[in-house]
């Protein structure tokens, strides 16, 4: 049996997207092992760990993406900038 990834029909943008998320998760795991962090309160209504904040950041970003696509015609790179900034803000102060 030949094992290929052809059935997954990869494209460059989706590959970058998935690899970025996987690498971030791996990096955060290593970071957490090297210097463990505590749960704390930021501007979010619940106490969160860095993993929680990353999850919340990505999940809300998906909703921002849906709103952007569904309601506006603006270019996607502006959205990318907004979303990256948003995730960074949530990660630092959330």
């Amino acid at each position, binding site marked *: 049996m030949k094992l290929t990834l*052809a*059935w*997954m*029909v990869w*494209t460059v943008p*989706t590959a970058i*997207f*998935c690899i970025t998320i996987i690498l971030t998760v791996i990096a955060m795991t290593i970071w957490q092992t090297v210097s463990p962090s505590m749960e704390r309160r930021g501007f979010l209504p619940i106490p969160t760990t860095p993993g929680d904040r990353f999850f919340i950041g990505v999940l809300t970003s998906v909703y921002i993406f*849906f709103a952007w696509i569904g309601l506006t015609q603006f270019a996607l790179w502006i959205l990318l900038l907004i979303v990256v900034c948003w995730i960074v803000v949530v990660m630092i102060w959330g």
Partner: protein
Amino acid sequence: MEKWPNNKAWLLVLPVFVIVAFSAIIPLMTVINYSVQDIFGPGQSLFVGTEWYRQMLGDYRLHEALWRQFLFSGLVLLIEMPLGILIALAMPKKGWGVPACLVTIALPLLIPWNTIGTIWIIFTRPDIGLFGAGMNNLLGIPFDHTARLLDAWITVMLMEVWHWTPLVALLAYAGLRAIPEAYYQAARIDGASAWSTFVYIQLPKMRGVLTIAFLLRFMDSFLIYAEPFVLTGGGPGNSTTFLSIYLVKIALLQFDLGPGGAFSLIYFVIVLLFSFIFYQALQRVGKGEKA
């Protein structure tokens, strides 16, 4: 602040993680890939960017199915939670009635979902079904779940309530049985009425199990497919087409894998958001009890 304990036991979770990676993450990435392409067949696809997302997010049928889904899940919770608690309160506390009640109540939970749909098709048929024919001929109330919107909804709701209220009842019953007798004795000494015993003792003590019941019922009713598909097929018209039924129609019956992929991801993040919110609520309930 507590210090983090030794986390090496997490390595034991690794095998499960690998299985989940193959059964969930790889298919999920494939769906992400599908959602940005027009798939014609094996090896033939065209990158279309966010076109399918634009199309699905603006699709009025998806909007209708989504509101229908929220209405359905809302009604399910509104009916099943109080009804399940009532049944649990009415169940006998000791003697031969306990196993008899438990088995009878649990029966609907043991029936395969497709069979449930088939049972209710026959039960509610306007010509020969016990319920349908009874409504039409004995009571003189016109009833036809294949033709009338309200009748279809009533039938689907009845089926859902009959199928899943037992789960809420069993969980609530387990919660009730876990309350120590001393609480009731104290209530009797204070001369508390049945209602205040319920509000101040039973309900707070059942909070944990009821939250789990709430979560399970919300998720299951939000993802419901087999029973309404068998019973009404999404009809009459589109009146009982829930999200999963519409999704299968797009992805498998019309074989529109691209829009189907975009739809799946929209569905997925909605489920993810609500799971996260309810999970947080559940955590908070646990913390409240500790204090």
